[in-house]
C-alpha cells in the first residue's frame, strides 16, 4: 500500500486534481457540483454528529438509518400537508425540519428504552428499529397516499438568495446564492452540537459516560439520565438530518434515504468519533456521493480542453477515454469502496468510546 503512496505519486495526483479543478473553475456548473456536494455533506455530518452523541455516551446507535428515515418520513408528510397553505415557504421548511427532528427524537426513545432501561443488546435493538421504520414508512405512506404507492411528493420552491452575503466572491456564490436555508441551518446546528459536546459541563459528563460509566456514577453523575438525554439528542439530530437531506436533493420521498444513515456511521468511525474529523470525512463522502455528476462535469471540461494543443495532450486523451468509458455502476459504488479502504487504513488503532455497546448496570460497580 505504502509503495503507491510515495511522495512523488501524491504530488502527481495533487497536480492533476488541481489542474482539473482549475479547468472546471470557468465552468458555471462547477458551483452546482459544489452545492450538490454540500447538500449531501451537511446532512451526513449532522447524522454522524447524532451518532457521536449516542456513542460517546456509551450507546451504540446502529439505528441511525432508521431514525433518519422516520424523521424524513414524518417531516416530508408535514411538508406535503403544509405546502399549499399561505404560510411563508422558509417558515414551512423550518417547521418541517423541527417536526422531523421531534419524530426522530420520539423514535429514538424506543432505542433508549431498550438499550438503557431494559439493558438489551444495542445492535439488536438498533437493527429492529431500522427494519421497523422502513416498514412503517412504506405501510403508512401507502395508506395515506391517493395513488397507493409509498411516494410522498412535495413541490420544490424553497431556494433563495441571501442578500449582502451573496456578494462575497466565490464563497457567496457557493454558500449564499440559490441555496436552501435549511442546509445552512444544518451547518449551524452541527457547529453548535460540536461545541456543546466539547465545551460544556454536559459534554464532559456525556463523554465520561461513554468512557467509564462506573467512575462517572461514582462522581455523582446519573448515567441513565445522561444516556437518555444523549440518545434523544441523537434522535433529534438524525431526524432533522433526514429532512435536510431529502428536501434539497429530491421532490418526493419513497421510504428511502439511500443508505446515508449507515454511511454516517462509517463517517463517524473513520472520523475517530471527533467532530472536526467527522466534518472532513463528511465532505469527502458528500463529494463521492455526487461523483457521477462530477464525472459528467470533468468530461465536458475535457471536451473543451481537447481542442488545445499542449504537452499534456496524451494525458488528456487517456484521462478522457478513462472517464467517458467508466460505467455508471462503477462510479456509483466508489463511495462504498473508498469507505472500506479508509476504514482499513484508519481502524487499526481505533479510539472509539470504551464503554460503547455495554449496557450500564449500577449493580456491577
Amino acid at each position, binding site marked *: 500500500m505504502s509503495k503507491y503512496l510515495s511522495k512523488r505519486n501524491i504530488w502527481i495526483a495533487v497536480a492533476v486534481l488541481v489542474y482539473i479543478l482549475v479547468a472546471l473553475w470557468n465552468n458555471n456548473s462547477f458551483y452546482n457540483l459544489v452545492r450538490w456536494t454540500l447538500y449531501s455533506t451537511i446532512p451526513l455530518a449532522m447524522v454522524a454528529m447524532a451518532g457521536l452523541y449516542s456513542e460517546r455516551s456509551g450507546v451504540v446507535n*446502529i439505528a441511525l438509518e432508521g431514525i433518519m428515515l422516520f424523521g424524513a418520513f414524518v417531516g416530508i408528510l408535514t411538508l406535503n400537508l403544509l405546502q399549499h397553505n399561505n404560510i411563508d415557504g422558509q417558515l414551512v421548511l423550518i417547521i418541517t425540519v423541527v417536526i422531523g427532528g421531534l419524530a426522530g427524537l420520539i423514535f429514538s426513545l*424506543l432505542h433508549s428504552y*431498550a438499550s438503557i432501561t*431494559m*439493558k*438489551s*443488546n444495542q*445492535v*439488536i*435493538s438498533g*437493527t*429492529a*428499529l431500522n*427494519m*421497523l421504520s*422502513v*416498514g*412503517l414508512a*412504506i*405501510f*403508512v405512506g*401507502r*395508506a395515506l397516499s391517493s395513488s397507493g404507492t409509498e411516494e410522498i411528493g412535495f413541490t420544490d420552491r424553497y431556494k433563495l438568495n441571501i442578500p449582502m452575503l451573496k456578494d462575497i466572491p466565490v464563497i457567496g456564490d457557493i454558500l449564499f446564492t440559490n441555496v436552501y436555508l435549511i442546509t445552512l441551518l444544518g451547518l449551524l446546528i452541527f457547529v453548535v452540537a460540536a461545541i456543546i459536546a466539547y465545551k460544556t459541563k454536559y459534554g464532559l459528563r456525556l463523554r465520561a459516560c461513554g468512557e467509564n460509566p462506573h467512575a462517572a456514577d461514582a462522581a455523582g453523575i446519573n448515567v441513565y439520565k445522561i444516556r437518555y438525554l444523549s440518545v434523544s439528542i441523537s434522535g433529534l439530530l438524525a431526524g432533522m438530518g433526514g429532512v435536510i437531506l431529502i428536501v434539497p436533493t429530491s421532490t418526493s420521498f419513497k421510504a428511502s434515504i439511500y*443508505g446515508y444513515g*449507515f454511511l454516517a*456511521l*462509517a463517517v463517524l*468511525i473513520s472520523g475517530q468519533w471527533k467532530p472536526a474529523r467527522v466534518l472532513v470525512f463528511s465532505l469527502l463522502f458528500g463529494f463521492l456521493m455526487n461523483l457521477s455528476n462530477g464525472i459528467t462535469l470533468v468530461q465536458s471540461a475535457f471536451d473543451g480542453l481537447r481542442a488545445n494543443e499542449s504537452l499534456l495532450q496524451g494525458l488528456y486523451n487517456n484521462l478522457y477515454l478513462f472517464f467517458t468509458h467508466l*460505467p455508471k*455502476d*462503477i462510479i*456509483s*459504488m466508489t463511495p*462504498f*469502496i473508498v*469507505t*472500506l479502504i479508509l*476504514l*482499513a487504513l484508519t*481502524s*487499526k488503532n*481505533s479510539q472509539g468510546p470504551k464503554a460503547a455497546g455495554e449496557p450500564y448496570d449500577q449493580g456491577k460497580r
Partner: protein
Amino acid sequence: MMKFLKLESTEKIISTIISIIAGMLFGLVVMLLINPSMAFGGLSAILLSGVSQGMPGIGNVLFNSAPLILTGLAVAFAFKTGLFNIGVSGQLMIGAFVAVFIGVEWGFLGPIHWVVAILGGMLGGMLWALIPALLKAYRNVHEVVSTIMMNYIAMYVSKMLIEATIYDSVRQEAREVIPSGRVPQLFLDQIFSFEKLNSGILIAILAGALIYIILEKTTFGFQLKAVGYNRDAAKYAGVNDKRNIVYSLLISGAIAGLAGAVIYLVPGTGIKLETKYAISPYGFQGIAVALLGMSNPIGTVFSGLFLGYIESANQELQSWDFKREIIDIISASIIYFSAFTLYFQKYAKKYIAKWFDKKGGATNE
C-alpha cells in the same frame, strides 16, 4: 414440573412467545390506526392463512421458510461467534449470481449440474464474506460497517455481472435456469400439491442440523464460540483468534450463498434474479429469524418456519386491504421485544426462585 420450570431453554421459549405476542399486538395497533374495520380480519389472516388452505397452504409455508431458515442460519452462525453479519444480503446476491450463472450456462455437467451450481453459490457467498473477514481479523475494521458497505457494492456488482453475462434484456432479468441446474423437487410439489415447492426446505433443515453439530459437538465449534465470547481470553488459551474470525465469516457467507442458490435455482414459475438498484431483503429477514431463534441453529429453524408461516399470509392480506409491509412491521417489533428477553428471564428467575422459597423446597441446587 419444577425441573421443567427451571430449565433455561423453557425460560427462553416462554420469553420468545411473550415477544411474539407483543409484536403481534403492536401490528394490530398499527392496523387499527390505519383501517379499523379490517384490522381484526387482517390479524386473523396472518394467524390462520398458513393452515386454512390445507396442503397447498402448508406447501407455501415450507416454500417461504427455506430461504428464511438459511439466511437466519448465516446470521446466527456469525452471531454465535461474536460477529454481526449484516452483509448476508450482499453475500446472498453474489452467491445467487454465481449459482444462476452455472445453472444457465453449464448444462454440460449433466446429473451433477445442480450440485455444482449450489457449490458455486456457496463459493460466491464465501468470496464476498472474505473481504470483511480479512478486514476484521487483520485491520480491526468493525464488521457491521464493512458488511453494510459490501452490501451496496454487491448491489452494483451483481447488476453489472448479470447484465454482462446471462441477461434477458426483454424481461430485464436473468435467463431461466435449465432443468438439470434446478434444485430437485423430490416429489414434494406433488405431496403438497404446490408446484413451486422444491427440496430447499430439506436442505435448510439439514444445514441447521449440520451447523448445530459443528457448533456444539466439535472442537472447531468450541474454538469459534470461545473467540466470540472473549477474543483475548481465547487468544491467551492458544486459540488463533484471527483465523477463527475469518473462518466464521466465511462459513456464514457460504450459508448465505447457499440461500441465494436455493432461492433462485428454480423453474420459471419461481423467483427470478432481477437487475434493479435494491439490496436483497432476504438478508435483513435473516437477521430477524436469527435473533428470534436466539442464534441457536435449532431455534433458527423453528423461527424460520414461524416467519415463513406469517409470510404466507401475503396473498390473503391483499383481500383485507393490507399490504405485505405489515408483516415486516410485525417481525421488526417481535425482534425489538425479543431484545428484552434477557430482562424478562432475569425477572422470571427471581419470581420462580421466590415461589420455590415460599413452598420451602430446595432451590439452590
